[in-house]
């Protein structure tokens, strides 16, 4: 459990952030310069806020009013930095064991477990100098885990990796999330990462928190999504696999607004999945369309029409208890007379799976 309420001024930049983070993965999401890294640095004790307080598992780490400021080494917060920051003069094994030098030592079983979990066995005797970017980040994650942290901070751990390595490291992070019961604070400006990994999202912009909530809520609100092109906005839905049609490679997913079908779902019947439906993939019809190739047609009601720039309008459609987003032109809104309260059919062209097989905490 993390509870935080801090402020800090640095020149013109003012940081004022307040949120609580529970089990699972909490993503600090926002553009570069939003103050995300400052927040995690404050949690780690590397940066000192001007005021406020920080609590981890009910223990006060920082409290300006009471003059409490627990020094970094005593906070027991594992920190994975954007650039890894492995010690270049030490081997991978020595990097992993580093925290053991300053604690009463860790059991060998813990070392073996983390090494096995992150696939580091082959790398142990090597030096950071000849590891690939992805390997470096895996070692950095292992090193942080082996400091027996109460909280794991990941600051854009994929930022310096190419697309292929990103996927690889992301899989390991998901593994950590599911296998190691440690709360994770994950800093990122990439929608894909946040949607895939986060349970809770803290949306930041220009030094302040715009929204805090479950990933599917925050990531679904177009008004809150800064710096993101028209391509990326959409809805995030938690669903469950109810049928797998192996012959056509199509799975049927149930959510609280009905059912969806999606291809290539790597999950068993009964398993929870998280899918993302981008606003640009949703079209609107006033009557139920017939004889079309689109497999997912959902009946719902318009709950909001928000004009954007360049003649684009964002339409919110409530389907059961879920809000879908559709991005249409202003002319289409006028021609169809789209307005709040109107019953419509949402045609979903593509459903992308962002997370399979693990229940959101």
């Amino acid at each position: 459990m993390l509870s935080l309420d801090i402020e800090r001024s640095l020149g013109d930049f003012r940081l004022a952030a307040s949120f609580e983070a529970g089990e699972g993965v909490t993503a600090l999401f926002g553009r570069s310069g939003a103050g995300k890294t400052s927040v995690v640095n404050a949690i780690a004790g590397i940066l000192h806020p001007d005021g406020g307080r920080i609590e981890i598992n009910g223990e006060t780490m920082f409290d300006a009013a009471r003059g409490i400021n627990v020094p970094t080494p005593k906070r027991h917060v594992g920190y994975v930095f954007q650039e890894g920051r492995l010690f270049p003069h030490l081997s991978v094994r020595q990097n992993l064991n580093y925290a053991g030098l300053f604690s009463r030592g860790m059991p060998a079983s813990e070392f073996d477990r983390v090494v096995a979990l992150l696939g580091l066995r082959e790398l142990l005797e090597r030096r950071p100098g000849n590891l690939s970017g992805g390997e470096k980040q895996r070692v950095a994650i292992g090193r942080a885990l082996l400091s027996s942290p109460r909280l794991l901070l990941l600051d854009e751990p994929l930022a310096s990796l190419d697309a292929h390595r990103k996927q690889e490291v992301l899989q390991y992070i998901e593994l950590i999330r599911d296998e190691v019961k440690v709360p994770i604070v994950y800093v990122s400006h990439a929608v894909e990462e946040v949607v895939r990994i986060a349970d809770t999202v803290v949306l930041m912009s220009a030094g302040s928190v715009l929204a805090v909530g479950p990933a599917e809520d925050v990531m679904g609100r177009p008004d809150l999504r800064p710096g993101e092109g028209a391509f990326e906005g959409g809805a995030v839905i938690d669903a469950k696999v109810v049928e797998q049609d192996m012959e056509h490679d199509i799975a049927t997913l149930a959510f609280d607004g009905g059912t969806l079908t999606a291809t290539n779902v790597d999950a068993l019947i009964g398993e929870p999945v998280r899918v993302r439906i981008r606003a640009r993939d949703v079209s609107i019809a006033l009557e139920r369309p017939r004889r079309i190739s689109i497999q997912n047609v959902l009946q719902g009601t318009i709950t909001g029409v928000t004009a954007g720039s360049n003649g684009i309008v964002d339409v919110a459609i409530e389907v059961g208890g879920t809000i879908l987003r559709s991005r249409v032109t202003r002319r289409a809104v006028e021609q169809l007379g789209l307005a709040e309260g109107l019953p419509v059919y949402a045609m979903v062209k593509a459903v992308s799976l962002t997370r399979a097989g693990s229940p959101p905490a």
Partner: protein
Amino acid sequence: MSFTPEEAEVLWLSLRVALWSVVVSLPFAVAVAYVLARASFPGKTLFDAAVHLPLVLPPVVVGYFLLLLFGRRGPLGEILDQWFGIVIAFRWTGAALAAGIMGFPLMVRAIRLSFETLDRKLEDAASTLGAGWMGVFLTVTLPLALPGVITGVLLSFARSLGEFGATITFVSNIPGETRTLPLAIYTYTQVPSGDAAALRLSAIAVLLSLGALYLSEVMVRRATRRVRGDDAVA
């Protein structure tokens, strides 16, 4: 080329003086370099200037101050003599002290530079892993500053081997006790038949300096590769 007993004595004494001056001043130089690189306090500029003073003062002046302080009747010399029975004026230990002080600024500069240029983010990383400042210093800061430390040691070692002015003023020119290489060369140049001997000793000095430079270059290169992690590609 084999050394005469006299040459061997001079050489041995010079190495002993230079070695001790370096060994004793190294911990102080590391501490001063660390403070200058990291701390900010009122009077820091003055402190910095004081550390560099031996570099710009005439060596004779340094030697004379040492004589005033550590001479038998000097304030520090008297305490050392009466309380501990230690006399350093006109002894080889005094020569080591003079050499150490003259080489001190060179050592501090080199070490300080490497403290200032190393990646301090690694120190933050170490502290998140539980290391207090002493732990960070010993396991990250100092090992990463090793190339600078080696350079500093070599510079001050070379400076010590060549020390003349402060030494002759403070501890005089006593054969077998304080007559180091430069003093011996100087002595030979002062007698009519001493040219050959002076030349031989000068040649030894050149070889010694070259050897020290070469050794340090090799060590610095190795240490640099190690702290950069380049040597991992074996």
